[in-house]
């Protein structure tokens, strides 16, 4: 076994020298006690000989008294010893365990229990480089597996080890393993997790934990420990642009003025040009000071003290950034918040926000939606309760320099503090700065909508097709677009399904999300009209109010509402995508016509009765209408 081997007297110095270069990997284990998580961690500690004789003696006696493994050691007891503390009312967020092998030192974040799971997992994941997700081979991918994976991806962990445990209870079956690994891979890709290594294990029996097992000769991949030892420790941070939040100003005397901090991204060299944010002043690095003397360079993860060539005003809370690639600055942000407070998060209430080394006042300007961590659905909400996650708009009382959390955890993560009781009540991830609209002015441009459309020999407009799912909107829109294109017109087709794969990927099907879905599409259509295009929009768009909004965004005569009118029974009979069947079976929620309303247009420009009209005839009617309205030339000839 490749673990701490006792060196002889002669080579202890050699051994120490080798140890000095050992890397550190931090990981989190996700799963419940039932998945064998405690047994897994206990076994890693045991097998890496992290335990001492007196601890083993205690384990042996505990195993006999409380264990579930007969006369054998119950490894779960090594990490489950917190029951008594729970009774005393001590909350356990995260327990940290340590073990080492010849190659690496490991810090394991273990989040026990089911209560407070979101808060605890988010805390543990915030410092982890990798996640080990446990699955019980008998049960496969469960709701909780999805929840754990979502939280892991939310916190920016990209590397996953999928430990498919209890293989001994499924006769070490390869098909069982392969099926679970495939199911998981499909789900994980949807939430952006792609770096996944699946390993069949039995924590109880020790199969594929440290050593390859003879019980699964069909598996040729690494064991769990081998994978933990060889996975690259995050190096992306060093490749990022330089970032360092200023922690403390070091001024021992009039001569020395240094700025201390931990480098949160990239590297810094003497002579590099840096910018002080949010103010924006610039200077060059004069010295990089450490106890071991000055250095020419320092990298992400190091705590250093920098001095600069110019006497510029820098204080705690400023962010030092590469002048070539400075961080963004904003006062209003799109962010995701995980609520950890006993009292709910309220929009409008003021909190303190700490990001990097800067603390500012902040309030939640808007709660866009909360996210069901089990289904990933978006739900309209007015407040966030303990352990809930929401997408919010934050407004600060002064500017903050930041990076998107996806790019840098240290410059994109923040905590929220209750101003009255000083508790940490929330944690969050900044996505982007949003500009309050009152500060935005329309650019007046010389080239306008009319000139762009004239160049294309057409009038710009929106053809908005609305109707039930399966009514035939997309088929008709396609035919119209093909004919327009064939005659040299410039068009674009916005299709409901396609837009949901990209621009509106973050939206679900609740009322709030549907409204936002349409608002965005209407805005995109407006920009395209401004570009001089004929825009076809094929969306269910069930609500009158949103269709009216879309109409209001473009000029008079530029909006054609086309009602593709089908009886629900007909649409359901057709059911080209099988969605009605799913909705009736309860597998799809908020489905228009079934458990979500459709409000038919009161006076559409064009109404197409699909019971009496073929798609081709419908397309011809629309073209004819456009010609009559002067959108396209009257002398336009249909080219089949």
């Amino acid at each position: 076994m490749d673990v701490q081997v006792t060196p002889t007297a002669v080579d202890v110095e050699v051994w120490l020298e080798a140890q000095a270069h050992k890397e550190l990997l931090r990981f989190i284990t996700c799963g419940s006690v039932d998945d064998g998580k405690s047994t897994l961690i206990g076994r890693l500690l045991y097998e890496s000989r992290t335990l001492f004789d007196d601890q083993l003696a205690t384990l042996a006696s505990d195993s006999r008294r409380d264990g579930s493994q007969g006369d054998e050691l119950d490894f779960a007891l090594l990490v489950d010893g917190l029951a008594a503390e729970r009774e005393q009312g001590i909350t356990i967020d995260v327990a940290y365990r340590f073990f080492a092998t010849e190659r690496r030192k490991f810090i394991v974040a273990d989040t026990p229990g089911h209560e407070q799971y979101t808060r605890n997992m988010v805390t543990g994941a915030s410092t982890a480089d990798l996640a080990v997700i446990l699955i019980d081979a008998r049960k496969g991918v469960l709701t909780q597996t999805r929840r754990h994976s979502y939280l892991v991806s939310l916190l920016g962990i990209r590397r996953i080890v999928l430990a498919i445990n209890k293989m001994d209870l499924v006769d070490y079956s390869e098909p069982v393993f392969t099926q679970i690994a495939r199911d998981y891979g499909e789900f994980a890709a949807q939430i952006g997790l792609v770096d996944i290594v699946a390993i069949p294990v039995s924590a109880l029996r020790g199969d594929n934990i440290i050593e390859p097992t003879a019980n699964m000769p069909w598996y040729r991949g690494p064991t769990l420990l081998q994978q933990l030892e060889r996975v690259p420790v995050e190096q992306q941070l060093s490749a990022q642009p330089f970032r360092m939040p200023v922690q403390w100003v070091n001024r021992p005397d009039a001569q020395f003025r240094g700025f201390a901090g931990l480098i949160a991204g990239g590297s810094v060299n003497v002579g590099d040009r840096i910018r002080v944010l949010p103010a924006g002043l610039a200077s060059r690095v004069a010295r990089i000071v450490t106890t071991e003397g000055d250095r020419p360079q320092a990298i992400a993860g190091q705590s250093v003290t920098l001095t600069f060539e110019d006497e510029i005003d820098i204080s705690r809370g400023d962010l030092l950034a590469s002048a070539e690639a400075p961080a963004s600055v904003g006062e209003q942000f799109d962010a995701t918040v995980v609520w950890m407070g006993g009292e709910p998060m309220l929009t409008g209430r003021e909190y303190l926000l700490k990001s990097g080394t800067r603390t500012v006042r902040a309030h939640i300007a808007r709660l866009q939606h909360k996210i069901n961590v089990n289904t990933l659905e978006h739900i309209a909400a007015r407040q966030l309760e303990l352990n809930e996650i929401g997408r919010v708009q934050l407004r600060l009382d002064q500017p903050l320099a930041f990076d998107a959390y996806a790019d840098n955890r240290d410059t994109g993560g923040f905590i929220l503090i209750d101003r009255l009781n000083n508790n940490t009540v929330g944690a969050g991830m900044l996505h982007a700065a949003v500009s309050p609209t009152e500060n935005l002015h329309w650019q007046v441009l010389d080239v306008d909508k009319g000139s762009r459309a004239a160049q294309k020999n057409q009038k710009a407009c929106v053809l908005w097709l609305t109707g039930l799912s399966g009514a035939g909107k997309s088929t008709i829109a396609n035919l119209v677009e093909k004919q327009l294109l064939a005659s040299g017109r410039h068009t674009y087709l916005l299709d409901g399904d396609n837009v949901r794969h990209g621009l509106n990927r973050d939206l679900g099907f609740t009322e709030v999300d549907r409204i936002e879905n349409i608002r965005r599409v209407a805005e995109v259509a407006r920009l395209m009209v401004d570009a001089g295009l004929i825009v076809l929009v094929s969306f269910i768009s069930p609500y009158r109010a949103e269709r009216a909004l879309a109409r209001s965004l473009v000029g008079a005569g530029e909006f054609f509402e086309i009602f593709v009118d089908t009886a629900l029974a007909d649409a359901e009979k057709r059911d080209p995508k099988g969605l009605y069947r799913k909705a009736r079976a309860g597998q799809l929620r908020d489905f228009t016509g079934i458990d979500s309303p459709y409000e038919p247009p009161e006076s559409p420009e064009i109404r197409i009765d699909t019971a009496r009209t073929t798609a081709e005839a419908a397309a011809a009617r629309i073209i004819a209408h456009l010609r009559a309205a002067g959108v396209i030339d009257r002398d336009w000839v249909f080219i089949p």
Partner: protein
Amino acid sequence: MSKLSHLERLESESIHILREVVAECERPVLLYSIGKDSSVLLHLAIKAFQPARLPFPLLHVDTTWKFREMVAFRDQTARRLGLELIVHVNPDGVARGINPFVHGAALHTDIMKTQGLRQALDLHGFDAAFGGARRDEEKSRAKERVFSMRSSQHRWDPKRQRPELWRLYNTRKAPGESLRVFPLSNWTELDIWQYIHQQQIPIVPLYFARERLVLERDGALIMVDDERMPIAPGEQPRLRKVRFRTLGCYPLTGAMPSEADTLPGIIEEMLASRTSERQGRIIDFDVAGSMEKKKREGYF
């Protein structure tokens, strides 16, 4: 230089924590217990703030029963580094003649250490105190925060402990409340020894094996450090080559037979040894779950 080693990452994290406290708290102090963890903590603190001087004093809560070599090392360290050292002894305890041999380990520790610490913190108005505790020391410490909130009575309230994400520590507190801060939380015993070796950090000579006068009592080797040690009839102190793996009050600290008189020797023995360091610390064995209990009462 493209990758950081585990010791470099631990060092950097500890320095970050030390600086964060100095930047955000009014009056921090370093609880200096003279042991190897304190030596590492002090070394990191000096690194964190240089070339400036250490921006806080050291506080040693002296129970009057520390090894003489510890006290000598303490005074010499403060002198050598030009540090401000505050030594506090609980005057009530002294007046009542508290003695671990007479009153037992639990009462002695409570009065001389726990009460003494509270007195000193109140007397000087310290609002944040650094300690050298590590999460790997004991199973129940695995869940400890780096920043631990204490009430104005120095009580640890389980409900008021804060989640710690990324490198963001919430140091805000009401008047009278204080913080205990543990910059070495993520270090293991082996990390400590490796770092001492790598950085050549001075430690108390008691850690190195030498011929010392010891008594075997209740299975532990207790050093006869001064004339206050009562020797029962039939007990015979003997010179044995021993060292200490952890240091505290001499009547409460067991020695181990050892030949290791160099740092590599200690590390070698440690790698081969199969007992945890807390076994030599007698206060842990008084009551089941005793650490939890002491902490709630304000012990570090």
